[in-house]
């Protein structure tokens, strides 16, 4: 009860009411009260100060009493008890109503949208026409979607890779446990590691056996998807995610010690640094050439061959490495706050 009470009183409305009724003086006095109550008084305190404090306490008491008397006459008392429950119920009803209203309005809109599957939608205009008819000769990619996201609209995709990088950095801020100055692990890290070891399977033969068979296949599949990104469905993002799934499976089966042999925090920083800088530099070069009407001098190759599509395949590889590293480090950080 008292908790709720103090909770209510610290609500801005209540404080505003108080301020409105008694002016700034009341707020200031309250702060003085707070000050004298919470701070520990020094031992050689003067009598004057003690008297002051007692006076303040009594004034405070009177004010509380007055406020309580006031409460009996208004809805404050109601709000403190049944009000909260009613408000939470009202919130549920309001939220449902809002959701229903949103669905209703959007459904009305959907009824007015262009028909699904109609060949004459506004989307089928000069933009998509050029992507389809000229895409092969301008980008060299058989997969028009890959050509579109990595050549026509490459700036968006650069932003997208940056999203992954910044997300990995944000998760590092949140979950990475700092080490001591000399590089030795702190108590928290040791605790996290032991917690992780406690809950993970150790030397599970079935898991290790299947991981031995599956991991290379998963890696191969991921690499295939990345390298064929400009020829067939797939590309850096999906391939990178598949490779990271393989890495996660390996980590789960064999533990951090074995995975740490080829993938450490340093690996993560340098791999993502190199692939992202390659990406940014390559695209900067191509943007600069494009904007200044210079020929970029990158051969497009024969469409359909594996070495074609200009920059698309190297960019897909870079994106794939970034995605694989990011997803793997998400998983590792979630498990024990470090690699």
């Amino acid at each position, binding site marked *: 009860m008292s908790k709720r009470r103090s909770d209510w009183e610290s609500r801005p409305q209540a404080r505003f009411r108080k301020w409105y009724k008694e002016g700034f003086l009341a707020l200031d006095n309250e702060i003085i009260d707070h000050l004298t109550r919470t701070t520990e008084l020094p031992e050689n305190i003067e009598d004057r100060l003690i008297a002051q404090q007692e006076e303040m306490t009594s004034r405070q008491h009177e004010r509380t009493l007055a406020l309580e008397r006031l409460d009996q006459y208004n809805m404050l008392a109601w709000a403190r008890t049944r009000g909260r429950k009613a408000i939470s119920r009202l919130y549920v009803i309001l939220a449902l109503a809002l959701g229903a209203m949103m669905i209703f309005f959007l459904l009305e809109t959907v009824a007015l949208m262009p028909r699904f599957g109609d060949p004459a939608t506004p989307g089928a205009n000069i933009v998509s026409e050029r992507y389809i008819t000229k895409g092969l000769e301008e980008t060299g990619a058989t997969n028009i979607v890959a050509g579109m996201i990595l050549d026509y609209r490459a700036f968006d995709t650069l932003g997208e890779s940056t999203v992954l990088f910044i997300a990995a950095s944000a998760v590092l801020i949140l979950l990475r446990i700092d080490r001591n100055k000399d590089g030795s692990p702190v108590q928290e890290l040791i605790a996290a590691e032991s917690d992780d070891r406690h809950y993970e399977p150790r030397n599970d033969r079935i898991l290790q056996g299947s991981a031995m068979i599956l991991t290379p296949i998963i890696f191969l599949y991921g690499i295939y998807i990345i390298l064929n990104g400009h020829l067939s*469905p797939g590309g850096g993002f*999906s391939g990178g995610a598949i490779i990271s799934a393989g890495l996660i499976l390996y980590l789960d089966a064999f533990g951090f010690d074995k995975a740490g042999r080829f993938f450490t925090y340093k690996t993560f920083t340098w791999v993502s640094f190199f692939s992202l800088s390659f990406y940014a530099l390559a695209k900067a070069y191509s943007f600069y050439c494009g904007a200044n009407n210079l020929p970029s001098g990158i051969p497009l190759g024969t469409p359909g061959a594996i070495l074609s599509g200009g920059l698309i395949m190297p960019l897909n590889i870079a994106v794939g490495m970034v995605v694989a590293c990011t997803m793997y480090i998400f998983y590792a950080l979630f498990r024990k706050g470090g690699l």
Partner: protein
Amino acid sequence: MTFIHVALLGMLIVCALAVSLTRNLLTSLIVYMAYSLIMAVIWMFLESPDLAITEAAVGAGITSVLFFVTLKKIHAIKGDSDEQAQK
């Protein structure tokens, strides 16, 4: 618009509702995983194989793994607490 297409779309709504109505956190996660897989199949119906691969790998794969490891870390998976209780 074939029957199976409509059925899949209906399943999506059922899964979305089930996520919020199930009591167990693990169940709702598995339902969400099913939701992602259905979504991947729908991408195939919409002739977007790129999206289907990405959704299957990222949405149903990595996202679910991240959810599961989170649940494990906060000890919300039933098996863990039982194991602890036995000790």
